[in-house]
Structure formats: C-alpha cells, structure tokens
C-alpha cells in the first residue's frame, strides 16, 4: 500500500510539473508579445501606411497589414460560410445516409489536417495557370479553402446536437426537410454556427503560410481584388528578423494587434455562444 502511495505522490508531482510547463510556456508567449508589443504601439503605428525608407527605420505604421488582414480574413470567412453551411446541412441525417456522410466527414478531417502551406502552393499553381499574380483575390481563395473544413466540422457538430423531437414536430406540421433545416435546425444550431464562424475567422486571420505566396506583400492598402495585399502574419514573418530595431518594433506591434484580435475573438465567441444557447431548446 505504501508503495502505491509513493507512486501516487511522485506522479502527482510530475503531473503538476507538466501542467506548470504547459501553462508557463503558453502564458509566457502571450506575456512576451504584450510586453514587447505595447511600447511599439502608437497612434501613428495603427493609422499610417509605410512611408519612404520604412525598411531602414523610416516612418509610417502597420495600417497596410491591419487593413489587408481584415479584408482577407473577413472575405474568406464570408465565402467559407456559404459553402460550409451547405456541406454541414448535407451531413445531417435528413439529407444523407450515414455512409456518405461519414465519408464526407473523413474527407473534411483530412482537409483540416492539411498543412496550410499546401493550400498556398495549390492556389499558387492555379494563379500561374489562370495568369494572375499575387493578389488579394488569391489570398482570399487560399484562406477560404483553409477555413472551410474547420467551419464545416464545427457547424456539423452543433447541428447534430439539435434534438430530433423538434425536427419531427416540424415534419408533422407539414414542413419539408429544406424548410425544417432553414427554420428549425439553423436557428437551433445558431450559437454553434456562430462559434464555428468565429473559430474559422481566428484561424484565417492568423495564418501566414497560405497567404505568403498568394497575397504577396505591399506597402499600400489594396484598391482592387487584383492588387497584392499585406497582412499581419506575413508582416511579422518578414520583419521580425530585420537587423534594424525600429523595423523589428513594427513586427512586435503587428504581433500585439494580431494576438489581441485573435484572443478577443476567441473569448467573445465563447461568451456569446454561452449567452445565446439560452434560447436553444434542449
């Protein structure tokens, strides 16, 4: 018995140590970004695009990346939404039998696992084929592809939890599967659909690998879909190894903005989902 006790004590210590390692390293990353990024922030940084000599320590801010990131991620999320809600609805038992549905789920899980650089490469090949260069359009396409599997799988899980009695009731009252899906399932799964959208948005706005060769990089705010677009992640990637401390400061500022954006979206999504699920019939 006492050997068991000793083992229990040893493993308890090991488990606490592990949890401490995980917590400290993750909190440490947030802390480093906030501590390094906060001093680099200023009104100019957030409201100006780069000016002459930017990469040698000249003036200007990171507005090009902030606007670029929002344009890329918001458009990609909107496009992915229409696609994902269709696929997620298809996966419900009213529209597919279990074998094809599970096959599609497997494909989605596989797509979720594909490294984002591969989405970038594929879009790059298509761009070369069609004959367009690095552009906002290509970046949006890459991010949309990246977001679809994430969004669809989370929507699917929330639609699957809609209680069957409600669907049966709608059916009994004479509505067909399409009407039930739109009026009952989508509304009941609303909080889950919202959190799926926000989760995918968070992934999209933070991803650098897929937009590296597709969206390109520019000092200007894009004026058309065929202009190149800067983004926060690519800006961090390019500037954080710069030899000039002022230029590195912009990477820290960009990381601060990006991290705050991602964390706020994630926390707001949790709170909203919790609040909205009060109106869901359980």
């Amino acid at each position, binding site marked *: 018995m006492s050997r068991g006790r000793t083992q229990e004590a040893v493993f308890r210590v090991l488990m606490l140590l592990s949890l401490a390692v*995980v917590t400290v390293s993750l909190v440490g990353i947030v802390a480093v970004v906030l501590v390094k990024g906060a001093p680099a922030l200023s009104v100019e940084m957030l409201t100006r695009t780069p000016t002459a000599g930017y990469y040698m320590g000249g003036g200007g801010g990171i507005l090009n990346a902030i606007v670029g990131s929002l344009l890329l991620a918001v458009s990609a999320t909107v496009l992915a939404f229409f696609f994902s809600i269709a696929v997620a609805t298809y996966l419900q038992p009213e*529209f597919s039998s279990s074998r094809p549905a599970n096959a599609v789920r497997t494909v989605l899980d596989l797509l979720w696992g594909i490294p984002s650089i591969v989405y970038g490469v594929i879009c790059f090949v298509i761009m070369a084929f069609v004959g367009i260069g690095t552009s906002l359009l290509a970046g949006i396409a890459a991010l949309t592809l990246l977001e679809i599997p994430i969004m669809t799988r989370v929507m699917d899980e929330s639609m699957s939890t809609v209680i069957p009695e409600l669907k049966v009731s709608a059916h009994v009252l004479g509505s067909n599967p399409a009407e039930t899906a739109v009026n009952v399932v989508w509304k009941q799964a609303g909080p889950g659909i919202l959190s799926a959208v926000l989760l995918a948005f968070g992934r999209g706005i933070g991803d650098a690998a897929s937009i590296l060769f597709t969206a390109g990089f520019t000092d200007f705010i894009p004026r058309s879909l065929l202009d190149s677009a800067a983004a926060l992640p690519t800006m961090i990637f390019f500037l954080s190894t710069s030899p000039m401390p002022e230029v590195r400061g912009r990477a820290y500022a960009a990381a601060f903005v990006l991290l705050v954006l991602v964390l706020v979206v994630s926390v707001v999504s949790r709170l909203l989902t919790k609040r909205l699920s009060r109106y869901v019939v359980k």
Partner: protein
Amino acid sequence: MPTSTEKAPPPFRHAKAVLFRRALQLAAFVVCAFLFVVVAVLTYKAAFLLRHESLPDILFSSEWNPMRGRFGFFPIILGSIYVTGLAMLLAVPVSILSSIYIAEYVRGYGKHVLKSFIDVLAGIPSVVYGMCAILVLVPWVRDGVAPLFGVSSTGFCVFSAALVLAVMVFPIIISVCVDVFQAVPQETREASLAVGATKWQTTKLVVLRAALPGVFSAVLLGLGRAFGETIAVAMLVGNLPRVPRSLFDAGATLPSIIASTYGEMMSVPRYDSAMMLLALILILVVLLFNYLARLIKRNFEKTQLGEGA
C-alpha cells in the same frame, strides 16, 4: 377536403426543397473532389521532375544544388524527422500527464477554466510562436544551451525549432486527450475504487488503459500538425538543406524549405517541380497520420459506447 379557411401554400415549395437538396449535395461533392484535385495537381506537377530523375535518387541524395538541377531531398527529410521527432519526444509525456491531471484530478469549475484556457491558447497564430522564440529562445540556445554542450550555435537550429514545435502541439494533444479521458465511463472508475485501488492506481490501470487508443490518436494528430507546421519552423530552423551535424546546427524541414524558397524558384527549371514533389510527400505523410488517428478514434468511441451502455 379543402375548406375556405385553408391558406394557399407558398409557391414552388416542392421545387425549392429539391433545389436545396441538390445544392447541398453539390457542395459536399465539391469538398470531396477538392481533396483529389489537390493530390492530383501535386502529382501532375511533381511528375515533371520524376521523368528526369528516379525517385530513390531524389530521396536518398544529399546534393542540393537547384542551379545545376540537383535536388537531393535526404537532408530535408532527415531534418523533418529530427525536428518532429524531438518535438514529439518533449511534448507527448508533458501533454499526457497534464491532461490526466486536468481530466481526473481537477474538479468542477477549475476543470472548465483550464480546458477553455488550453482551447483559447490553441488559437495563437504560429507566426506569433515563431516571433516569441526568436526573441527569447534563440538567444538562450545560442548563449546558454549550446555552450553547455560545447558547441557554438547561432540559435537558429533544430533544437530551437523542436522546442517551439513542442509548445505548439501541447494544446492539440491535451485538448483531445482530456475529452478521451472523460469519455471513459464513470462506472469503471467506481468499480476500481470500490475494490480498494488508490486514485492513481485507478487512473493508471483502468482509465489510462481504456483510453489508450484515444491517447494514441491524439498523439498522431499532434504528429501530423508538427510535421506540417511551416511558419514557426521556417523562422527558427535556419533553412539550410544539409544534414545537421548536431541538434544545434541549422537544418530544414519539408514545409520550411517550401516556404523559404518558393518565391525564387520560378526562374530555375525543375525547381517548382521539386517543390511540388516535396509538397506531395508532405501531404501524403500528413494524410496518413490523420487517417490513422481518425480510424483509431472511431474504434475507440465504438468500444467505449459498447462498454458504457
């Protein structure tokens, strides 16, 4: 029998429903087709290089000289194995121990808070991990760790990349593992405790054993993510396609070499074909890991449901 109070049905109800169903089917078909398109495009593009050189030559040659059309993948593949292997070696024990603690030892609200905390942090963009590592980890490895082992290092090396990769897969493995442990039916724990086992004995001999396939699938998911992680590794590993002489030497991984050379490759013949072949190998390995993970998880869920019922 129609009565005067009955309202006319909205027009085209049936047609709309049929159209709706067809649209959903089309969307699902497009998603599935896309996976095949990805593999097909990469294969088609990679075939160009394979017509000129044999696959074993490419895989086991160490000569990387794009200007002369020599693409030896061996150092890159080895670099990927080193970085991913070391990262998993560090991440797996820490993640599993943490998730056991969260699932079995923390009660009530604390558990909810810890799980949400891990999930929120799983969303930190990888470029942020990379930047923090350049700020903190690289100087530490350069001035602290490498001299300890008697080697000089720039800090941009296999070890740094593996360390930050380990931190990046913590949330993935922990998040899946906690769910897996919680899926083990409560009755199994109670039965073990009732015959006199301690809490840890129950965890080790009953919960962990029942959850083992699920844990394995979590590790595979983490492995797939680590193998494909691009930006953070590209920022840290040094991106030199040569066999690293030590853990503190620069190397390259499959995704990192794609990310760092993609822009310049168009001017050199066969370069893009070589990159496509790298991407193809990358995607096939990741798909294999993820497929196995899914297979094991499905089996686990089936058996757990069977036992729990």
